[in-house]
C-alpha cells in the first residue's frame, strides 16, 4: 500500500502561529489609559513583594507560564538577601535562561519605561534579562495580505468616517 500524506495537515502545536509570526497581537482596549500594556504575546514582569522578588513570563492567553522567584531555595541559598537589588538581578538571569530553554526569545517588558527607570530593581532585572539573551521587544506579526495569501486580492484601506457619521461631534 502506498502511503499518502494528507491534503490538509493540521499542526496541533498551540504555539505554532506565534512562532511563525502569524499571531496578531492584541491591541488593548480602546478607552484604556495605557493601551499598549495589553498588546503583547509574552510579557515579562518583576513582582516586588514584601519579602521576595519574583520574575514572571505572562502569556496573553495562558497567563503565567514561567516564573523564577527567591522563594525557590536553590536561588535563595546563593543570595545574601531575598529582597535586595542583586536578588532582582539574579532572578532576571534565571528567568531569561528558563525562557530560552522553553523556546521563548521575545517578550515585552511588563512595566512602563518611567517605572523601570525609577526603580533600581526593575532596571537591573530588565538589564539582566537582556544580557542573558532575551529580547525585550516582540517582532511585528506578518499581516494577512496578498504576499501571504493569494486569495487576498486587495489592499486594506482605512474607512474614514464621513460628515454624516460624525454629526453629533460637530
Amino acid at each position: 500500500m502506498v502511503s499518502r500524506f494528507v491534503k490538509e495537515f493540521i499542526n496541533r502545536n498551540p504555539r505554532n502561529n506565534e512562532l511563525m509570526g502569524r499571531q496578531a497581537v492584541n491591541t488593548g482596549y480602546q478607552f484604556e489609559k495605557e493601551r499598549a500594556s495589553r498588546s503583547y504575546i509574552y510579557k515579562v514582569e518583576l513582582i516586588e513583594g514584601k519579602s521576595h522578588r519574583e520574575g514572571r513570563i505572562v502569556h496573553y492567553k495562558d497567563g503565567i507560564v514561567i516564573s523564577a522567584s527567591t522563594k525557590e531555595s536553590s536561588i535563595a541559598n546563593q543570595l545574601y538577601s531575598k529582597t535586595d537589588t542583586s536578588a532582582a538581578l539574579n532572578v532576571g538571569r534565571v528567568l531569561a535562561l528558563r525562557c530560552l530553554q522553553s523556546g521563548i526569545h521575545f517578550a515585552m517588558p511588563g512595566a512602563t519605561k518611567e517605572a523601570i527607570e525609577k526603580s533600581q530593581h526593575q532596571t537591573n532585572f530588565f538589564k539582566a534579562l537582556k544580557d542573558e539573551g532575551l529580547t525585550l521587544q516582540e517582532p511585528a506579526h506578518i499581516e494577512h495580505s496578498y504576499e501571504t495569501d493569494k486569495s487576498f486580492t486587495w489592499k486594506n484601506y482605512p474607512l474614514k468616517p464621513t460628515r454624516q457619521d460624525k454629526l453629533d461631534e460637530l
Partner: protein
Amino acid sequence: MSAAQYARLVPKKYRSRTLPKIDRPWRPRVIAWAGPAAFYPNRFYEIDKWYKARIDKPEKLPEMHIIDPANHTKSLEELLKKPESESINIGFAKREAAIKSEKSEGDRVELERKSRHMELKIDIDSVDLENLSVYRHFQVFDHLFGENVFFENVQRLEVDYQDNLIYSGNILTAESTVNRPEVSIESVGNGKGFNTLLMVNLDGNAFEGKNGELIHWMVSNIPDGENVAKGKENVEYLQPLPFYGSGYHRVAFVLFRHSQPIDFSINGSTLENRIHSISEFYKSHENVLTPSAIRFFQTSYDNSVKTALHSLGLKSPLYEYEYRPALKPDQREFPEKPQPFDLYLDMYRDPKEVEKEILERRLSEIKLDNVEEPEWIDPDYVENKKKLPAWLHSKQLERKGVGYAKYHNDVL
C-alpha cells in the same frame, strides 16, 4: 365626491334624496398608519378599562433594566478564564527540594559585599528547572496522554544533540537532529528497575486515516544506571520530519520506569507504521509503566528533512498555511459608504484572475524564475502624475501587497 360631481354622474331620476357618502374610507387608513389609538378620545394614553367595582387599580411599573451588582463583581479576566479542572498525576510524587544550606558568618560577609557592589552572580546552571506550567502551555501532556493528566519530572534525563541540550521546548534546527542524540539517564533505583525511552513527534502525523503520534525512536528495557545502548531498540532512530510549511513540531522524549522487562510489540518498519497513539500505548501498559521524565524541543523544516524523506522513498510534501477567509462585506452596486472604487473592486476580483495577470506580466518580461524589481519604479513620474488618474498611478507606485508580489513571490 362633491354634490356637483354626483349630479353630473347620476340622472335626476335615480338620485337619492341625500347625498350618499361615497368618499374613500379614510378612517381605516389612519388606523393602519397610526394604530388603533388614533381615534381614542385621548390618544396619548392607553385606555383605562378598569371597572369601578375593582377597588384599586394595580400599579403598573415600567420594566426597568436592573443591574444587580452581585452578578457583576468579576473582572473580565476572571470571566474569560477557563474553568479549572483537577488534573491527575500519573507519575511519581514530586522529589523533595534541596535542603537549605546554612551559610557561615564569613560567607555572609562576602555575599553581602558582593551583593552591595552588584557583583553577586549566582550559578544559574545549578538552578534546576522543573516547571510544569511550560508543558501545559505547550499542551504536551494533553496531546500525549489526554486531557487533565500530568506527571512530575523526577528523574534527570539529558538528551544531547551535538551540544544542543533538550530542555522544555527550545528550538533546534532539523539539521542538528539528523544523528541520534546522546542520552544520559539518572540512576534512581540502585541498579534495580528498567527505563524505557520514547521519542515522539506530537505533530508529525500526516497520514490519511491514521490516528496518533509519530514515534521516532524507542528503546525499551534499559537497565537502571546503564547506557541507552544496553536497551532493546524497538523502533530505530529517525530524525524528526517537520514537513515544508507545516511550522514548528514538538518532539518529546518521554522516560518510563518499570520494574520488570516488558516485551513491547511496536511496529516501526515504515514511516506510516511508526504512527501509534501514545495514550493507547500507555493505557495498555498502565499497570507496569510509570512516566518519570519528559523533555521536548521544537523544530521546523530545512533541507535535511527533504533528504531524509527521499531516502525513505517518499516525496517531501509541501504545505501552505491556509488563512481563514478574510472578512469582506458583500459587494454592492451602491455601497452604503463611499469607497475608493479601485480598491473596492479589487476586493471582489477572482484570485485566479489576479494571479494570471501577474504571471502574464512576468512572462512579458521573459524572466519567469528570476524577475528583478526595477531600480526605479516609475522613471516618468512627472509625466505620469499629470497624465494618469491618481488611483492608477498609485497602483503603479505601490510597493506592498500585489505590487510587492509582482516581483517577490515564488511561482510554484
